[in-house]
C-alpha cells in the first residue's frame, strides 16, 4: 500500500475546467471518498489518478513516485468500475487471472493468488461461472476480486455500488468497508451518494463544479461545513438554509426574517455575523437541532407546518421560514398537522451561519 498525493490537478476540456486545482493527500491505508453531485469532477479526478485521462497540469504521486507520464498498467493501481466491467466471455477464474497473466506471472502463482482472492471474497464456488450467470452483487464481488489479486498500491473505485438495488447496496457497503479494514488498503472511492461516503470513508473530499470544497473526516465535515454547498450536500435530510438579514435591536445582534420576526443571537454567533461581508446572512440548522413546540415559547420563532412526514421512529415536519423550507424532526408522539401554527427554537451552539454573499461559513475569530 502507498500514500497518494494530488498536487494542483487541472483537467481542461475545451476551455472548461472539469477538475480545477484539486490538491489532496491520501495517507497510506486511508479510505477517501470523492463525493459530489453529477458532473462535479470526481470521476475525472479518479481517471486522472488511474491514468485513463491525461492531465492538463498538476502532479500525481503514488508512493514517492511521480506518475504523471506513467501508463495505467504501470501505476500499481487497480480499479473497480460502476458496471463491474467483467470480461463477459471469460469465466470468473479467467477474469481474476487476467491482470496477473498480463503481468506474465507464472501459472502456479496465478492459480494460488486467484484461489486466495476467491476464498477471501467467498466466491470459490463461482470460479467456473461466466459473469452473466452471476447476480449483480456477485459480479461486483468478482470485480473487487480482480482488483484484489493484483495487490495494488491503491484501489480506485468508481461508484461500485450504484448499479445494485438498495438492499444489496447496504450489504456490499459493509463488505467493502470490511475489505478495507482487513487489507488496510489505500482506497479512493467515488460516489454521488453522500450516505455511502459518510458511512464508509475515513475522509471525505467534497467536490462541486470541479473544485474541492472540503477535505476532512466525515464527522468534521458534518459538524463544520466550510460553505453552504457542503452544508446542504452532506447529511440526510439536508441542512436547512434560511436566508436572513442581520441587524441590531436594542443594541443586540439579531437576525430578521422576511415575515418580520427576529432571532436574538448568542455573543459567539453575534461575533460571527459581524464578520459577514454584508447584512445578508444564511442560517443553517440540521433537523435535530431545531426544537418544535406547538405553543409560543420565549425566543422561539412562529411558523406554520407545511407538510408532515411520519417515518415510524421519527416524524419530519417541514415549515416555511423566510421563503425557505426548514426541516425539523420530532418524536412520533408529537401531534402536528399541516397548516398548524408551530414555534421553532434554534440551538445557538449548533447552528451554522453563512455569509449570504460568499456562501462561506462565518467564523468567530
Amino acid at each position: 500500500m502507498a500514500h497518494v498525493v494530488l498536487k494542483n490537478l487541472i483537467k481542461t476540456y475545451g476551455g472548461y475546467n472539469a477538475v480545477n486545482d484539486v490538491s489532496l493527500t491520501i495517507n497510506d491505508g486511508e479510505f477517501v471518498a470523492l463525493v459530489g453531485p453529477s458532473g462535479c469532477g470526481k470521476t475525472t479526478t479518479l481517471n486522472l489518478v488511474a491514468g485513463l485521462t491525461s492531465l492538463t497540469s498538476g502532479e500525481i504521486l503514488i508512493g514517492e513516485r511521480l506518475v504523471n507520464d506513467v501508463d495505467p498498467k504501470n501505476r500499481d493501481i487497480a480499479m473497480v468500475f460502476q458496471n463491474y466491467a467483467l470480461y463477459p466471455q471469460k469465466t470468473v477464474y479467467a477474469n481474476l487471472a487476467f491482470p496477473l497473466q498480463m503481468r506474465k506471472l507464472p501459472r502456479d502463482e496465478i492459480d494460488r493468488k486467484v484461489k486466495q482472492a476467491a476464498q477471501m471474497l467467498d466466491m470459490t464456488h463461482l470460479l467456473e461461472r461466466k459473469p452473466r450467470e452471476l447476480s449483480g452483487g456477485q459480479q461486483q464481488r468478482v470485480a473487487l476480486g480482480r482488483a484484489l489479486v493484483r495487490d495494488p498500491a491503491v484501489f480506485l473505485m468508481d461508484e461500485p455500488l450504484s448499479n445494485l438495488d438498495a438492499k444489496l447496496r447496504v450489504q456490499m457497503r459493509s463488505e467493502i468497508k470490511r475489505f478495507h479494514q482487513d487489507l488496510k488498503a489505500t482506497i479512493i472511492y467515488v460516489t454521488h451518494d453522500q450516505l455511502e461516503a459518510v458511512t464508509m470513508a475515513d475522509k471525505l473530499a467534497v467536490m462541486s463544479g470541479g473544485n474541492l470544497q472540503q477535505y476532512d473526516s466525515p464527522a468534521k465535515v458534518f459538524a463544520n461545513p466550510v460553505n453552504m454547498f457542503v452544508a446542504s450536500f452532506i447529511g440526510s435530510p439536508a441542512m436547512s438554509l434560511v436566508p436572513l438579514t442581520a441587524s441590531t435591536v436594542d443594541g443586540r445582534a439579531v437576525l430578521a426574517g422576511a415575515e418580520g420576526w427576529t432571532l436574538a443571537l448568542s455573543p459567539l454567533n453575534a461575533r460571527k455575523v459581524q464578520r459577514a461581508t454584508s447584512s445578508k446572512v444564511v442560517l443553517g440548522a440540521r433537523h435535530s437541532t431545531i426544537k418544535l413546540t406547538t405553543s409560543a415559547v420565549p425566543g422561539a420563532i412562529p411558523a406554520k407546518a407545511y407538510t408532515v412526514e411520519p417515518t415510524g421512529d421519527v416524524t419530519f415536519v417541514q415549515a416555511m421560514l423566510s421563503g425557505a423550507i426548514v426541516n425539523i424532526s420530532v418524536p412520533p408522539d408529537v401531534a402536528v398537522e399541516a397548516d398548524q401554527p408551530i414555534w421553532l427554537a434554534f440551538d445557538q451552539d449548533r447552528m451554522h451561519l453563512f455569509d449570504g454573499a460568499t456562501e462561506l461559513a462565518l467564523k468567530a475569530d
Partner: protein
Amino acid sequence: MTIRPTEVPARATARPAGVFRRAWIHRADYLYVLPAIVVMLIVIAYPVYYTIELSFYNTPPSLQLRDKIFVGFDNYAIILGSDVFWQVTLNTFIWTIVSTGCAYILGLGCALCLHRAFPGRAVMRAILIIPWVISAVAAAYIWKWIYHSNFGVIGALLVELGFAGRPPNFIDSVNSVLPSLIVVNVWREFPFAMIMLAAGLQTVPDQLLRAAKVDGAGAWHSFWHVTFPHLRGVSIATILLLAVANFNSFIVTWIMTGGGPANASHIWITHIYEIAFGRQRWGIAAAYSVILFLIVMSLGYFYVRGLGGAEKEGGAS
C-alpha cells in the same frame, strides 16, 4: 457446463401427433399466412421442383423441352465423373474461402483504423465504401483494363519500376487468373465487412476497454481479450453473408474471364450458366444446381447451428 433440467421434458412433449393437433387448433392462423405461402410456392417451391425434375432429363435435339429425354441419374453420374466438376468445385471453395477470409480481415482492419477519431475520417470512410457501391459490372470492366496484359496500369507500373521485363499476364494465365479475380472480389466486398464491423465496434463497452488498460493489457491484448470476443456475433453474421455471396458469385468472373482460360477461373455459377445457356444442356445444368444446392444447404445448416451456439455462449451482440 450446467445442465438445465427443463430442456429434457420440453423435448419429450413435442411428439409428432401433437404437432398436427396443434396445427389444427391454429388452422385460422394458417389462413392468414396463406397468400404469402402461395407466393412462396410459386416463386420458390415450383422452380426448385422443376430444377430437380429437369435434372433427370436430357435436352432433345429439337431444343424443345416438351420432348426432353428421361435419362435417370445419368446426368449426376456424368457430373461426378468429370474432372471439370472437381476442378470447378475446388475453384469455388478457394474462391469463397480466400475471398471471405481476406474481405473479413481487410474489413476488420479498416473498421479498427476508422474507429479512432482523426481528421478526415468521414472522407476516408466514404472513399472506402466506393468499391461496394459502384456497379459490379463497371468494376469488373475497370479491373479488366487494369489487369490488361498490353494496356494495363499494373503491368505498366511493374515494367516501369523494373520488377518485370514485360507486363505479366494476370487473367490470361491459368496460374494467376483465380488469385487475380479474388483480388477484385475482395476489393469489392471488404467495405461490407468494414461497415458491419464498424457498427459492431460501436457497441464495445468503453468501461471494459478501460478495465483492460488498468489490468495491464496493451493494444493487442485489449483487442484480443475485449474487442474481438465482443465482435463475435457480428463477425459470424458477416462471414456467413460473405460466404453465401461468394458461393453465388457470377458477375466479376463472368465478365472478366468467362471462366477461362481452360476453366481455371470457372466457379459453380459461371459453369452452370455456361452449361445451360452456352451449351443448352439443361439437364446437366439442373443436376449441377441440385448438387450445389445440397452442398450449400448442408454447409448452411452447420453454420446456422454454429451461429445458434455462439449466441448461447453470449458472444453475440
